[in-house]
């Protein structure tokens, strides 16, 4: 390992660069969308158990929660993280930072419009976002902006040495834009039902794997090394993590249709290639763990880093569970049930939020010159998120397996025939578990509120600390040539 350093800039004096203001705005907007997503997801969990007591169906509420979470929180927040690290790792100014800001405004506005469309009954019913094609098109179009800004900034880089984070960032933004394009394919009029549902699953699984896990892990590598001032254990392990996640891509989405109308060979291929998912997640978690050797006690003072580490481990569990259910033997019971709902929920509301917090909690003081007044709130966030999201996931998995087995039992007992409902006793027990899921959902929501209050509280009432300001080797012309 060569003893040189990338273009990372350390503490200078106050007054943030424009780039950093753009990143901060992304973090703030993302946190507000998290609060919205939390409310909607809680209502969705309520509607899942008490569907007849709520005026909006679970289907619509889930789509709305996904919109706020995936596009509102995870796309915006992680994009902000990318804009935070790019100038620091490339030594180049952000390409067209005005475009980056416009991207934030466009995405936020469109997500709000999307939510309105779904709640008013103009949705298209597609999962996971539930939008009609005329909203899918502009919404997915905004995903091109982070890719354009990132790639063009990289083209102008001054620093020729790449820290591993740059791979994850480049891969993530390109994959996100491509995922958007694939999702739009499902809107084409000649696409049949099977391609339609594969397209939806490809997008859902790809978003988790190629965006949340990839970009979240990559940005956390930067946070971990920079905040603790310790070198990364292994560049090679990071490469294994990156490419494995890319390889895992969307297989666990495809695997949800095991024994479905798709070709039989796909079930085996999806199960085998889906193993790349836990390998990628494990490689990143292991890399972070080895990096932290001898520094674990530092995590007590670094709630952001702690959150990221827990997010990585949470990711391993999610990836293993997803891979596990991709095998036909397990899939015959778990497919179509709450099991997969649990995987998606844990990936978005658990891994996604924890990894994002791993970055934002540590980046905000550098960006704004303001630090959180107390580490208690972020610690509460971590605790509540792990308990709440973990509880929801376990409840949904249990409910899903119970449903799956009850279908088999119902089928064998012929009680199934008329209702398609499964074994009544099993179905009843699953309903109790759905009630537990709602209860844990409340805990998870409190965690989300703790995240939002940490971000907002830091920005509007934080304790002054040294601010990191981008200074370039020469007085870089601010024009975006």
């Amino acid at each position: 390992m060569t003893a040189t350093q990338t273009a990372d800039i350390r503490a200078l004096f106050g007054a943030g660069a424009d780039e950093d203001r753009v990143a901060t705005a992304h973090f703030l907007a993302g946190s507000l969308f998290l609060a919205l997503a939390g409310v909607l997801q809680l209502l969705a969990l309520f509607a899942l158990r008490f569907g007849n007591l709520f005026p909006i169906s679970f289907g619509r509420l889930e789509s709305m929660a996904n919109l706020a979470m995936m596009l509102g929180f995870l796309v915006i927040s992680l994009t902000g993280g990318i804009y935070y690290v790019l100038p620091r790792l490339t030594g180049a100014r952000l390409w067209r930072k005005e475009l980056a800001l416009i991207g934030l405004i466009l995405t936020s506005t469109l997500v709000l419009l999307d939510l309105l469309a779904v709640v008013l009954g103009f949705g298209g019913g597609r999962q996971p976002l539930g939008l009609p094609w005329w909203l899918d098109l502009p919404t997915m179009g905004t995903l091109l902006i982070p890719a354009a800004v990132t790639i063009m900034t990289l083209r102008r880089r001054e620093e020729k040495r790449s820290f591993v984070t740059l791979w994850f960032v480049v891969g993530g933004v390109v994959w996100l834009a491509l995922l958007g394009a694939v999702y739009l394919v499902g809107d084409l009029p000649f696409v049949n039902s099977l391609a339609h549902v594969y397209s939806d699953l490809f997008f859902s699984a790809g978003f988790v794997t190629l965006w949340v896990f990839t970009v979240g892990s990559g940005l956390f590598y930067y946070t971990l090394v920079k905040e603790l001032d310790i070198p990364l254990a292994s560049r090679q392990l990071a490469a294994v993590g990156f490419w494995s996640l890319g390889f895992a891509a969307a297989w666990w989405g495809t695997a949800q249709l095991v024994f479905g109308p798709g070709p039989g060979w796909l079930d085996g291929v999806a199960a085998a290639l889906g193993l790349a998912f836990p390998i990628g997640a494990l490689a990143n978690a292991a890399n972070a763990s080895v990096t932290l050797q001898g520094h674990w006690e530092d995590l007590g003072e670094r709630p952001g880093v702690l959150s990221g580490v827990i997010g990585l481990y949470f990711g391993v569990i999610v990836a293993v569970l997803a891979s596990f259910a991709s095998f036909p033997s397990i899939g015959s019971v778990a497919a179509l049930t709450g099991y997969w709902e649990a995987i998606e929920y844990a990936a978005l509301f658990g891994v996604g939020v924890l990894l994002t917090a791993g970055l934002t909690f540590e980046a905000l003081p550098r960006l704004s010159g303001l630090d959180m007044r107390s580490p208690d709130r972020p610690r509460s966030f971590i605790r509540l998120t792990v308990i709440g999201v973990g509880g929801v996931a376990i409840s949904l998995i249990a409910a899903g397996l119970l449903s799956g087995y009850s279908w088999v039992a119902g089928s064998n007992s012929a009680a199934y025939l008329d209702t398609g409902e499964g074994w009544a006793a099993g179905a009843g027990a699953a309903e109790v578990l759905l009630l537990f899921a709602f209860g844990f959902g409340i805990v998870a929501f409190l965690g989300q509120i703790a995240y939002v209050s940490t971000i907002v509280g830091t920005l509007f009432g934080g304790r002054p600390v040294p601010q990191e300001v981008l200074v370039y080797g020469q007085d870089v012309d601010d024009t975006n040539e």
Partner: protein
Amino acid sequence: MTQMSDLSAAADALGVPESIVQRSAAARAAETGMTVDEVLAAWAGGGAAPVSAPTPAPAAEPAIAAPEEEPAGEPEAPTAPAPPAVPSVPAPVAAAPIIAAAPSGKPPVLVGKEDHPLAVLVGAVGLFVAVFLVGLVGPALPFDEPGARSSDLPYSELALEGQDVYLTAGCGSCHTQMVRPIVADVGLGGVTLNDSNQVLGTRRFGPDLSDVGSRLSGSQIETIVAGVGGHPALSLSSTDLEALVAYLVESKTAVPGEGPGEDSGAGTEEGAGTTG
């Protein structure tokens, strides 16, 4: 000291271009309520603020003391009027592109290797395309010769409008229209083939509806949609309701002689709308 000379002096002291010092001073002034001149004077060393000589300071060492952490009575407090609260100025450590040791003297940590991250882009796109072709395009293509059966149901115009209502109302989030050739799905209707024109769905919190027309009558479906039996009450216009019911009633996939429609006729509505 004039602003210009302060600017030059501050730039010299900090070792960064004047334009950046100017911008930083303006932002600092806006944040602290001071004037730009006062900030520049402080940074140039001529102000009353505690301006220390620039010394390398890593980020971990706070250069700006938090107000609430400052001791109430500083022993060396000047007798002159209290200076404006301009923070001390840590030195610029380095400017990009940096190929330099960390200020602490420790080995640098954010080390990289000379490569081209945009090359990753090519690999990432290639990998994505491969996965896309194998995981989405391949399986979605028709692969069977036309056989005796088909899952492409002959829906009426009204039923196809009802399919749109089914989608818009979010029914597909809870109901599948997909029967698999496994034990768990025995009795639900004919196994769904890849030419299906139903809304396949990916979750089955409620019953599978691919063959619901063989189990329930139109009036029974209307009752369930209205909110009976634990099903959420859907607020649909009469036109939409009529279309939705038509779609579900025409959803009949059972193979003659094998399906529930043949065996049991119109089934009960018991539990048909509950979750689970």
